[in-house]
Structure formats: structure tokens, C-alpha cells
């Protein structure tokens, strides 16, 4: 191999767990907003969009945490 392998410091587990926790909290908040805003489309529909973005954070981090892929 003619080039050096790039390495980046891994993110500490504490930080990963902290981010994971916050994502789940924000998900619960957005879900509450969506379900409680039936008569307010301007809130309900935006909460739904936020939930779709939160899902991407779940794919990026929470799945690996909940499936026990990350070693403590």
C-alpha cells in the first residue's frame, strides 16, 4: 500500500451514549407533538418531518447502540 492508512480518533463511548439518549428524547417529544396536534396541521406536519430526520439519526447511531454492536 503506497499511502498511509487514514485514522481518526474514535468517538468516546460516553459521547455516543449521550447522543443516543438525546436522540431518543427528542424523538419522544416530536411524537408527542405530532399526536397532540391533530387540529393544528402546521405543527403536526412539521413534527412528522422532524421525525423523519430523527429516523436518520437512529439509522446513523441508535440502531448500532440498540443492537449491541458497539462494545462498551
Amino acid at each position: 500500500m503506497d499511502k498511509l492508512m487514514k485514522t481518526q480518533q474514535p468517538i468516546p463511548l460516553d459521547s455516543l451514549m449521550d447522543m443516543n439518549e438525546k436522540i431518543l428524547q427528542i424523538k419522544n417529544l416530536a411524537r408527542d407533538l405530532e399526536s397532540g396536534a391533530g387540529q393544528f396541521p402546521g405543527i403536526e406536519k412539521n413534527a412528522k418531518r422532524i421525525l423523519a430526520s430523527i429516523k436518520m439519526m437512529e439509522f446513523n447511531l441508535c440502531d448500532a447502540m440498540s443492537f449491541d454492536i458497539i462494545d462498551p
Partner: protein
Amino acid sequence: MMESEYWNPLLETLPLEKLKQLQLKKFQRIFAWAYDHSKFHRFLYNKTGIAPGDIRSLSDIKHVPKVEKSMMRDIQNKDPFPYGDALCVPLEEVSAFRQTSGTTGQPVYQPDTWQDWEWWSECWSYVLWSQGYRPGDRVFLPFGYNIFVAFWAGHYAAEKLGCEVVPGGVLDTQARILKIQELRATAMMATPTYVLRMAEVAKHKMGIHPSSLPINKITCAGEPGAGIPATKKRIEEIFDAKVYDHSGATEIGAWSYECSHQPFGMHVNEAMFLVEIEDFETGEIIEEPGKQGKMVITALDRMAQPCIRFDSKDVIEWDKDPCTCGRTFRIIRGGVIGRADDITKVKGVLLSPGAIEEVVRSFDGLGDEYEVTVDRPGDVDHILLKVELLTGVSRSEIEPRLRDQLRLKTNLGYEIEFFGYNSLPRYKLKAKRFKDLRKK
């Protein structure tokens, strides 16, 4: 704080063994989702006697029946209109329609929810971040914004990354070139065929040398070109820009990308897709590097119309070396080498159209365009190659070397017809340069 090299520093550097654990869990989830929510999938799996609880290890996945494109066409005749019964969400949840280009037959309709569109742009975010797109880039998208997926998700991903996006939709090629120049766009995304077309128009019709444009990186997709060294070199030289390969498909998603280290291949996004390479003859799954086979792919997080063990017909092989970028996502060597439909036996020899392109575009005296026709006028196969000679280039100087190289790279002999520059057809999106007239 130092900027991350990776869009996802956790998953893109996960050891392969861990990635495989993640893939198994995600496969179990999407398989159960499809089984529970889609009549099409449940019927398909029940027929084979396989149910969600049967997937206990990655090796169990090969027992899950594959889905062919023709099956997706057939289900469109069923309810709910217009998608059919592979739809896993209520119709009112579908927020976007796209369809395949129909290159291989009747187009397939693709329903996506808003979450699926977020997912599309998330997949593309991995692509663009790895290729060095950053805030401050002004990204020009010269494609017709319409019913085809094309670079739509690349547009959204570039916005997500913090780039400025210029949608060059309903403009002709000259207007697009002028807009790139006027706005000092730094990056663009297009098919390799169209990138070459833009270069040709800029140079020959407008007197603008493409290297004078401020574009410093180009993401190519839709065709294998950017993975073919001679084509990549040609584009990089003429634009004085880095050219990166990417592969995706309407029914699948944006599943692979060449990173800025240009490892002569593309990383498979193994956190979001499961790629299996199937032996052409035996159908066994190939794990070892260096052996070509047909890609069977699962999008692990696509929900509205899942893509589970889709028989893509793309021909790929695993690379034996990891990339110097530090990503652990494996590399498919040389990108998508071709399509199983196009790789054909001629005079008993396997011929890939990409190998011909590699030879033609390695000759400076030949134009970008070429055409290959395989026929069998009598009992013997015959290949006709049409190429364009650039002005001032001597045929007698090129022809013997071209024949030698073709023989060397493909083990076959050709009838070669030479044309003047700008005689062969030009394409705007995907090109059709290979015709096998024996398939009637």
C-alpha cells in the same frame, strides 16, 4: 475542532465483523416489516416456506427468494394503483413518485414516503461527504428535474451538507456551461456521457476550454464510465477536476461511492445496504475478492416499497485491499464492471462493453463516442466497432495500434469503421453504445 473525514465516523469505520452483525439485525427487521405489511412479499416468502423467524444468521439470507425487475413490473397491475401490493404503507403516506428510465423494458414505479426521501438524501450524504463536498461548495446540477430519480437526492444531500445548490434543470447545454462560468460553480453531478458532451459543446461550439471552468470535482453516476480508467482520465484532464464514481438505482437507493482517495473502486455503504455477489453459474455467494459475479442487494432501511434481495444484474467483484481512507466499508474493484445482460459470449469469449470503452478512450486521437454492434450474419459472430477520428489525426497511425489493443484487452477481432468527428450519435443522459443484434 478538527473536521471529520467521515459522514458517519462510527459506522464507516466499524470492523467488518461488527458491520455484518448490524446487517443481520437490520435484515431481520426489514424482512419482518415486508412480510407483515406487503401482500407481494408475504406471498413470495410463504411460497418458499420462509418466515421472519427463519433468518438467524447471514448465511440464512441466501434462502430468501430474490426479486427480479420483471416481478416489480407485474405487481403494478395490482392494487393500490399505481404501485401494486409491494407497498408497505397506506397510499396516503406516499409523498413522492419516481420511475425507472425504462432502459430494459416497461418503467417501474417507485413510491417513497417523506422518510424514504430523507433516507435517499442520507445515503447521498455519505457519497458527497466522502468526495469532499463541504459548505462553501457551489454545486451545479445539469439534469432534467423530472420523474426519474437521477440526481434529485444528490441535490437534497448537497443542501444537507451545507453546500449551495444550483438546479440547472430546464437549460440547454450551452446555457448550463455559461451558468457554471457565471456563478463560479465548484462541483457538479452528471452521467459521464453528459459530462463529456458538456466538454465537447464548451470546447467546440463555445470556444471555452472546460479546464477554465471553476469546477474542481465531478460526481458521475448512471453509467460505469467514471469507473473506467480511460474515461475517468479523459474527463479529469479536460475539466482539470477530480472525477468520482457513484452507483445507485431507483429501486435500490444510493448504495456505493468512490471516496476522495480514489481507490479504483467504490465503497459499498454496508451500514445501509447488504450486497451479496452471486456466482454466474452456480448461484453460490462469493465472499472471496477478485471473483466476478452478479449483485443481489438489499436496502436495509427503505420502508415504503422495500428492496430485499433485488437481482440488480450489475457485475461486480470485491477488492482484496482496504482503502487508505480508513473506511471499513468494502470496495468493489473497478466499480460496476458491467451488466450481466450486456456481458455476452462472442465467438465463445466473454465480452464486456466496458473493456472496449477502456481501449477506445485511451486513444487521444479518437473522439469520445463509439458504437459496438455484435451480429451473426452466417455461422460466425461478427463485431463492428465505429469510432470517430479527431481532426488532423491519421487513420493509418491509429488503426493498427487500436486493433492490437482490442485484441489484447478482449481477445477478439473487430471490423473497425472510422468516421469524422461529430458523426456518431450524441447522448444527453445514458448512452446506448452496445447493440447485440443476435438477441432478437
